[in-house]
């Protein structure tokens, strides 16, 4: 043991966080020791409060303080339109566009066999039950445009098409402000396939 026990414990706890190695944990621990006591207490309180109060929305599995999240409890939203995302943080990205007025469904990841994640490990069955019960007419598959996200979208599309529900996928193509000469073959190919008349 090189440090006094409370610091050792703090370093050990911080090192358990994702993306934090022993060196980063040590740097963060020393930062916490240096800041005023009130700031350290605020941080500790924020962690405990978030952990205690935040739960999964009963319907869409977004993070929420209430049983139903702010989107599911908003009666002005179109409940026949459901946007399927991988993680709760993706909802924020879509909400920022101001273009979507439907509801969400958070899967909790994407199908990745190499990581042992199959459809059973995601909230796919919950989505299927929701489509049946809530009379959903269209499901927008907004999983990431990665190989795993595409496979997840394919799997869900096959599943819900047999239920007579319209399945759509977010368009993918060239980023706004990018140069065509730097576009990779996969993205450019997609952009060509999904071209539209102007």
């Amino acid at each position, binding site marked *: 043991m090189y440090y006094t026990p409370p610091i050792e414990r703090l370093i050990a706890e911080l090192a358990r966080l994702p*993306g934090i190695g022993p060196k980063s944990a040590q740097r963060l621990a020393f930062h916490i020791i240096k800041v005023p006591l009130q700031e350290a207490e605020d941080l500790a309180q924020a962690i405990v409060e978030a952990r205690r109060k935040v739960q999964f929305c009963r319907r869409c599995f977004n993070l929420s303080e209430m049983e139903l999240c702010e989107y599911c409890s908003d009666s002005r939203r179109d409940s026949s339109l459901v946007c399927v995302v991988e993680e709760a943080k993706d909802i924020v990205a879509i909400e920022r566009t101001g273009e979507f007025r439907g509801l969400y469904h958070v899967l909790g990841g994407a*199908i*990745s*066999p*190499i*990581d*042992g*994640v*199959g*459809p*059973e490990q995601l909230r796919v069955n919950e989505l299927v039950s929701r489509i049946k019960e809530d009379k959903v007419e269209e499901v927008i598959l907004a999983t990431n*445009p*990665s*190989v*795993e996200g*595409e*496979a997840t979208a*394919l*799997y869900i599309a*096959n599943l819900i098409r047999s239920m007579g529900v319209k399945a759509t996928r977010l368009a993918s193509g060239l*980023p706004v*402000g*990018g140069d065509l000469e*730097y*576009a*990779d*073959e*996969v*993205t450019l*190919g997609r952009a060509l396939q999904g071209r539209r008349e102007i």
Partner: protein
Amino acid sequence: MRSYKDQAIIIRSHKLGESDRIITMLTSEHGLKRGVAKGVRKTTSKFGGRLEPFVHASILFHRGRNLDIITQAEVINPHQALREDFRKYLYGEALLEITMKSLQQDQQIPRLFEALSISLECLEQEVKSYELFLSAYELKVCGLIGYRPHLDQCIRCGKSELTKGAFLHLEGGGVICGHCQPSSSGGIAIDEQILRLTRLLLLSSMEEVASLETPPARARDILLLSFAYSEFYLEKPIQSHKVILGQLPPSIRKTPE
């Protein structure tokens, strides 16, 4: 030379920091490599979809202190069909995982890159039995790392007549005849047709395997056999195995013994 070029098939990636990724890939000349792709998660990244799993690319590396840095990537074959069909994706991921787990970091096994490249190309085309295709690949990879199963004669007595039934003996790396099989040794019983078909898988090219057909229940039994064999010799659990078993048609679904 601080920079070098090599062909690679991308296996998987992990997030690193704010916008980087660590890419695991099988290269043609440097074996299994991990390299850092800086800024790849930004939508304006020059790499775009070039460093996604299944992509066969020509890559320029710059030697780093721990991991090498990927500075350029040019697509040779994106294996697009594997992204557009769920079953092809599922079995393709299993091919990538078994390849990755058969090697240590920077380890090079002759012909493995070629085997993976050919198998991914075959998988993009029509495959009659995905179960047989994956079984053949797993057994062939075991062969390439030095654990080819001995299926032609009994590994104890050497007799090639296995009429009284055969048992796959994992520790022995092959089959044991009914006479030599002690009741308590726990070999996996295999019937004559499964044995014949498994031998055929080892002798055939992946192009030939892609056109082989067999009843689904038999294909499943061979799949379970190859899963048990590969996990035993790679000494690692293969995550994609349980996902594949969960996606088999309900009529032939069975948990491994």
